């Protein structure tokens, strides 16, 4: 393995491409996402999407915020070569809903809101609540690992550029 600090900078584009692919999958192929995660009912873009274009040694950032915001500007940015660097998502599995943000370069999870759990009213309640919270966090971590794993297999395959990347470009330009 490469030196960790070198690898972080050298491969952060992979995380941004992952989020770009994920947005594309969310908008075009929920069926395949359900195959990747059998508990998934839906995965949707939440209230924040950040894209960055670093072409021509200049950095251009597009931030789309707000519930039900139009994502057209994001698609336009993709056609110009931008990639998603941060995405806020809503994940529904069964009757429960999780909300969280994911950063491309670090794959860090932030702003994670879990489904409601029971309150801690007595010290005896604590263990149950902790185990429930751990289970609920695990669902999101498992989802990310699972999706990233599918993405990276596609990404290192020979037909990434000719098939998947090409479909992403077509999707972005068709709006």
């Amino acid at each position, binding site marked *: 393995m490469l030196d960790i600090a070198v690898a972080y900078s050298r491969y952060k584009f992979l995380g941004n491409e992952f989020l770009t692919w994920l947005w594309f999958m969310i908008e075009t192929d929920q069926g395949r996402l359900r195959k990747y995660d059998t508990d998934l009912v839906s995965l949707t873009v939440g209230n924040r999407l950040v894209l960055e274009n670093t072409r021509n040694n200049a950095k251009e950032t597009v931030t789309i915020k707000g519930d039900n915001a139009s994502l057209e500007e994001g698609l336009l940015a993709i056609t110009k070569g931008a990639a998603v660097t941060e995405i806020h998502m809503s994940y529904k599995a069964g009757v429960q809903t999780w909300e969280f943000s994911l950063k*491309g370069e*670090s*794959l860090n999870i932030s*702003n994670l809101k879990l489904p409601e759990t029971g309150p801690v009213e007595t*010290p005896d309640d604590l*263990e149950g609540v902790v185990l429930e*919270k751990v289970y609920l966090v695990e669902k999101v971590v498992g989802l990310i690992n699972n999706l990233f*794993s599918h993405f990276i297999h596609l990404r*290192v395959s020979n037909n990434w550029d000719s098939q998947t990347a090409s479909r992403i*470009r077509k999707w972005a330009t068709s709006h």
Partner: protein
Amino acid sequence: MGLLSSRMSITRYKVTGQLDGSLHETVYQGLKQHAIPKIEDDGPEATVGWTSFETPYSPDFEGYSFVFGANMVFALRIDKKSIPPKLIQKHYALYVAKRLADTGRHYLSGNEKKSIKDHVVNTLVHRIPATPNVYDLVWEYDTASLWFFSNLKAPNEALETLFIKSFNLQLIRLFPYTEANLMAGLSDKERDLLQDIGASRSEE
């Protein structure tokens, strides 16, 4: 920020290596040895140590209280003293004025000014109480997975340093390259391809 917060931030790690002997006893000893001191000492600007999840202001790991099912849940605590710059400025000005009056001079050399400033900071550090910051973590030993409930740089660096010191195990932060290499189940051939991969044409 922690496991019981309504909004959480998580940095994920893979733990490399194995512990010798009884898992819970070994972890207990590591936690006890590197626990944050219960009594605040008047020394350094920052103190870093382990604390318990349930009682973060009074670390207690007795009875393996950090074990929750298959997980170990405890916390990193960083007690930091922050001296307001204006306070330093005030005490510095008072010291300089006193030194000038005592010596009958009209100015001080650069070295004298620096020495006064160091003295002021050292004096104030001893008088100001530290602010505690608590960051929970969940460690599942069997899957070598650890979640740290903060995305901030300094607490993550403190965690990585203290973890290896306490348990002699290394933490590898999971970001795109390490996630691909360690978690995605790539074959050797795919891993080789990963080494040479560049940004997509559309995102270059």
